[in-house]
């Protein structure tokens, strides 16, 4: 009998897989983010391209170097750090000095991802930790908003962008207020349609709600994202802001405005949904979303800062293990309620 003197391969069942793969998922997320990036560059000028590039490179380099130093193979192949870098870049003010962009990227990935054990181990969203670090380290720079770039100024780079490392940036004379700050400090509300189209000041990638939603829809359709989280957030924000406005909050916050202003859409669609730091079960995801929505409304209405999405998501990340513990799937055959 001639067959098989070659060795067979053995492995555990199942011997087939669906073909789903982490790198495919992560690449799809970058794809979904591509239109948002393009719009950001269109809206705020070439500076945003620089910011995004530095963000992605600093995140990827941190992870690569850290793995090398630890004697492990590079993990750039799973693409997750590319997603982190891109999302991190999109949450930054368009004119942020590039050296600060790099600092936050190194911190976010180095501390919130690598130190926790890399992909899958980070309890907090690394992109947001990076941003939160910058917000705490350089609050002035992080609340300095450049206005939309006119066609003529498209190729201009704000002076602050190119500030020397460790040096205080100097700002161009013109600044803008984000819709939320304008409402909180000046009492001027921005039109919802303007918010949807993204022609407002704000973080590079947060302004165009429509494109973000489209990217999210793409990921949901490919079953790569749990839609319950953003819907939970939107629901909670809409409901609570309606209730609080009706009850007479410190300033009126119509749901439409609350939903589409600030980083809410970007955060809800792309950042709260980071699978690693969000709960597992669908019920848990609803709760998680509602919690974020609640915190966002509370911080926006009563907190010191105009915007609270970042803090809300980070806090919810910390609660997520408890949600996971409390909400388990109902095991088949366990007593029915």
């Amino acid at each position, binding site marked *: 009998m001639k067959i098989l003197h070659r060795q067979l391969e053995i492995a555990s069942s199942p011997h087939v897989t669906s073909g789903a793969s982490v790198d495919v998922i992560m690449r799809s997320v970058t794809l979904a983010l591509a239109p948002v990036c393009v719009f950001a560059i269109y809206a705020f000028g070439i500076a945003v391209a620089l910011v995004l590039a530095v963000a992605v490179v600093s995140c990827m380099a941190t992870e690569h170097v850290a793995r090398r130093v630890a004697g492990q193979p590079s993990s750039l192949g799973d693409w997750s750090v590319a997603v982190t870098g891109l999302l991190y870049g999109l949450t930054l003010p368009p004119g942020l000095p590039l050296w600060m962009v790099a600092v936050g990227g190194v911190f976010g990935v180095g501390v919130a991802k690598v130190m926790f054990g890399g992909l899958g181990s980070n309890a907090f969203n690394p992109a947001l930790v990076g941003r939160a670090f910058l917000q705490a380290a350089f*609050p*002035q720079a992080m*609340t*300095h908003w450049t206005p939309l770039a006119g066609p003529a100024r498209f190729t201009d780079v704000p002076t602050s962008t190119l500030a020397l490392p460790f040096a205080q940036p100097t700002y161009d004379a013109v*600044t803008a207020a984000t819709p939320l700050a304008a409402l909180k*400090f*000046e009492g001027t509300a921005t039109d919802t349609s303007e918010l949807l189209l993204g022609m407002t000041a704000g973080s590079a990638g947060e302004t165009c709600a429509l494109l973000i939603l489209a990217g999210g829809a793409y990921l949901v359709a490919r079953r790569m994202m749990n839609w319950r989280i953003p819907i939970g957030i939107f629901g909670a924000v809409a409901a609570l802001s309606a209730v609080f406005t009706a009850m007479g909050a410190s300033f009126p916050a119509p749901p439409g405005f609350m939903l589409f202003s600030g980083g809410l859409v970007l955060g809800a669609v792309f950042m709260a949904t980071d699978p690693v730091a969000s709960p597992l079960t669908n019920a848990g995801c609803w709760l998680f979303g509602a919690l974020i929505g609640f915190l966002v409304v509370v911080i926006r209405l009563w907190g*010191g*800062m105009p915007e609270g999405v970042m803090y809300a998501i980070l806090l919810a990340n910390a609660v997520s293990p408890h949600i996971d513990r409390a909400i388990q799937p109902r095991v088949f055959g366990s007593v029915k309620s």
Partner: protein
Amino acid sequence: MNGTPALDKLPTSALAMYRSIMVIGALCALMIVTVFNATEARIARNREQALAAAVNAVLPEARVTVPVALDAAGALHTADVLPALPVFLGYDADNQLVGAAITGIGMGYQDNIRVLYAYSFERQAIIGFKVLESKETPGLGDRVETEAHFIANFEALDAQLDATGNSLANAIVPVKQGEKNNPWEVDGITGATITSFAIGNILNDSASEWVPVLEANRQVFAQAPAQEGNRGAGE
């Protein structure tokens, strides 16, 4: 492993326990009291100097200050014990009432901010300002102590009373940096909007309460109580 495990299982007699605790307690008390007595005078002087320096900073003309407080009936009288938010009347070298140094408190970005400001009877304005205590973010919120244009607000911040004499003619309002158009507006600080607005609000609240009272009692306290001298420190 350091030392040897203690193996004595014998219960200690109550006497030994009393003895040890009482002796140690007495010795400790003795030591504390000694140190306290030795440092008391010096600490009191430090405190006095600190407060005097603060009052002096906001109300430089005053040579003599007298703490005052409102009693239950709402009447102003000199205070023997300093209240939580002390108010001092300031008299110049000629013992003439020139102004008052008032403590105010309110929520800032992080926590409560305590400020001391001076009210000038003559100019009917706030003419000096100092942060006594704040937990505002260094480099941001604490710019209210250093930012020149912000301090400039308090060279003469209008605090006139209206016709009734019961409230300010114009409420003190904070505005965004560069938008100050009236003497009763506080020019804010970009990047520290919250803290600077909080200061404006603290001043408004405190001044609305105190300026009417002070103005009403201006005549009563026009002269410095002779023998009292400069008191103002010591809790």
